[in-house]
């Protein structure tokens, strides 16, 4: 099996966070239609936060819009394979020179260079992944948290479970 599709599960969730005078937080969630666009949700969220602000003594600290997707055709976890904590850690450099990491939990041992922690970035599958991150899919390309493009793969290494003190 291999992944063939992703499909939205449920609607669009708008979660609003509040903080009171003691710094304690709370939240409330509103469900929106599954077909809503992100621009529509943001416009609605702005209107809703403005209304809620008139009713609550709390600080409205933020909101998140979440959409969950199910996977079709995923390959089952490999029995005896690497654990979720065994991660492939890919470090990229942004256009602004900052480092940004993307991890793959359960990274296959086969991609690790023998006797080293580094991953074989010349492998076809690894290269396909890193190319998708750097170049994107033709429409979307990942950015870092400052919205800077990821320009260059700096390193790729395995971070094993034992390094976490497990």
């Amino acid at each position, binding site marked *: 099996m291999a992944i063939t*599709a992703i499909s939205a599960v449920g609607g669009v969730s708008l979660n609003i966070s509040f*903080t009171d005078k003691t710094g304690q937080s709370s939240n409330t969630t509103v469900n929106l239609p599954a077909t809503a666009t*992100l621009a529509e949700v943001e416009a609605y969220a702005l209107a809703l936060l403005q*209304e809620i602000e008139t009713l609550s003594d709390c600080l409205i600290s*933020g909101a998140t819009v979440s959409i969950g*997707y199910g*996977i079709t055709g995923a390959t089952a976890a490999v029995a005896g394979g690497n654990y979720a904590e065994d991660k492939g850690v890919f470090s990229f450099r942004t256009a602004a020179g900052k480092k940004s990491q993307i991890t793959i939990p359960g990274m*296959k041992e086969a991609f690790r260079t023998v006797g080293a922690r580094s991953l074989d970035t010349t492998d076809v*599958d690894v290269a396909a992944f890193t190319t998708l991150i750097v170049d994107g899919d033709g429409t979307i390309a990942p950015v870092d948290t400052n919205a800077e493009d990821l320009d260059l793969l700096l390193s790729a290494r395995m971070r094993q479970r034992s390094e976490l003190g497990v």
Partner: protein
Amino acid sequence: MPFVFDHQPIRVTLHYRDHTGKTSEGRANVAYGSVRADIESFALALSQAAEPLTDCEIIGVTLTLPLRPEYSPPALPDSDRSRSGVFIFESVTEGDRFVMPIPSIKTAKLLTTGVWAGISIDQADPDVAALVDLMLVGDGTLAPQSYAQNDLFRVSAAYRQHRGL
């Protein structure tokens, strides 16, 4: 001061599960303003590119758009998250409800007379009515739904709830 959002990149999170049942996740950010359908196509491509590299099963994807207000008025001295205004909405399907708590509801929005004074939320208050309208009618483009994704059509109860009382 009106809310303005400080726009952040949109997060695409892949969820993984290993053979012991433990879960983990890996995340990529994409630019704010990207179209949802384009992000979904990218998320599928990312899942397909990550799958050959992992011994885990990729069990799901979450798309998250953070909305951080550039400025929020500070919490008022009366704020207390354990005091909530609870709105119970009924959907168009009988028995299907949606509960919306608003932490630290202002006491000025509660009824001041009658047996429910200090407990029931005053639905005639313009601010309360505006919120209810936004929940039931929406903003002209979107309107919220119940957990079962049915349209909401009325408030069946709105009251102050105080944890510990």
